[in-house]
């Protein structure tokens, strides 16, 4: 058993469209040192350690209620694990 010392990158690929703009802005605001890569039709967000999506940040930018389940409409893929998926927050990180 070994626990890696270095934080490893995790990330999500999202559809890049108007519907997801507020979500992407919220992720950018809440995650320092986020790497962003644009590809046709999609945007790839990666970060070392933990990537957090906060309901309140998304709602503030969207101007309407947003439940975290709605994240399923935006996501194309991810790497890491959903260590938390709750009413107010989604967290992607590696477990070990």
């Amino acid at each position, binding site marked *: 058993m070994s626990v890696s010392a270095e934080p490893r*990158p995790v990330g999500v690929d999202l559809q890049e469209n108007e519907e997801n703009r507020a979500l992407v802005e919220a992720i950018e605001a809440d995650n320092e040192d986020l790497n962003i890569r644009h590809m046709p*039709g999609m945007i790839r967000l990666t970060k070392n350690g933990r990537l957090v999506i906060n309901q309140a940040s998304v709602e503030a930018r969207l101007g309407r209620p947003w439940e975290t389940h*709605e994240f*399923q*409409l935006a996501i194309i893929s991810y790497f890491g694990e959903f260590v938390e998926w*709750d009413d107010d927050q989604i967290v992607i990180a590696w477990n070990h």
Partner: protein
Amino acid sequence: MTVPAQKPVRKLSMKQRYSALTHDLDWTPTYVTEEQVFPHTTFEGIKVHDWSKWDDPFRLTVEAYNKYQAEKDRRLYAVLDGFAQSQGQLGLTDARYMNAMKIFLQGIPIHEYDAHRNFAYLARYANGPGARFAALCQSLDELRHAQTEIHTLSHYNKHFDGMHDWHKWSDRVWYLSVPKSFFEDALTAGPFEWLIAIGFSFEYLLTNLLFVPFMSGAAFNGDLPTMTFGFSAQSDESRHMTLGLEAIKFMLEQDEDNLPIVQDWLDKWFWRGYRLISLVAGMMDYMLPKRVMSWKEAFELYFEEQMLGGLFKDLEYYGIKPPRHVDWAIGEKEILSHQVYWILYQYSHAAAFSTTIPDAEDQAWLEQAYPETWPVYRDTVWNKAQRVMDEGGRYFNPGLPQLCTVCQIPMGFTEPGDPLTQCQRQSVYEGERYDFCSDGCQWIFDREPVKYRQSWLPVHQIFQGNCGGPTLPDVAAWYGLQPGDGAEYLGSPDHQNWLAWHGQAPQEG
């Protein structure tokens, strides 16, 4: 009189809702034993002590599932409709692009349906409610994928060759036996092996390579329906990835004795899946007029960085090692697409897609993407193919290729580190000789020879007289191919139609 202020009804949290609507609906049978209700979860040797430990991180309930899937379908069908109404096929980069889509749409929908069937089976036969409900959702998802792919195909079928008999082809045609044998291999395994095969190895480890750069490539080439069904399917896929990851962790956490069984399956299914998606390598680098990234770059990004650098560090905790033969796969990343496309090129006269020599623009792209290896293939094969074309011919291989007994791809892969020497491995089992494209495929055979000796190998079947007759026209007729479905792209009906459509387009003022 005072009216007491109405207390707002306290909503259950997501965690409580999930628990109430999945785990809490379960009961322990009393008239029959657990073994009688769930008879299929012990014979593979996986030991489970507590099924309630299987959770769905998405915390999905029926209500939330229906709500968001309906919305996904609404968005997708709006795009398909708009594309058909506006004659979107005219806005593709080139009709040649459709050949990549043909391979995908001929080969995949039926196996989405297979996945639908087997997850429906798990939704009944898994012991735990968490596993059953996640499998139920995935079963419905996979049915949706089959349907949306067929709807996409049905629009293109009005305008292009190579779409009309996809269902029959997927049962009969040589290159489509590659995905067919892969999925049927998984379908005929036990439930836990299926989860490692499809849920974990294919969906978590490898489908990113199939879908993400490829669908982004569709977006880049004006193929909105494919981009949209692709991304829409991928949004379900992230749940499937989660199920696959949950499955492997669950098995590993339940009992230490499960580790060697799981590692073996992982080794097998990594290589099976990797060989299957080598078709995608050829499609990405050679069949898209505009490329988003090369196979090599996608492999580095989606497999080496994310999976080897991320996931396998996590699985190390349980004692899992990176898949056997992974170094062979890494060693092939510079040559895989060249070899696969050359196979497709020389046998496309017996296929339902057409191919052509990379044009000057393609060659310039290949040169910068593969500065070391592209010149080797340009000089050894493509310049010769071009000379044949210049003399008014077209090079097709007149013989039938030997197929690898396991992956069923024609033998065209090479020895590690030596891109010009064909790799050939052989095993003898009960007096019969079997041939393989690689150590990976040979290892898989040697583990389960009784299973793989039954492989339905298209070339063997032709020789045995099971495919309509001994000549190419006999076989093509039995396949259900029509003139225009395959062979050379330049001058094909698709190419000529494309030129005519654009010649007749109104001139821009």
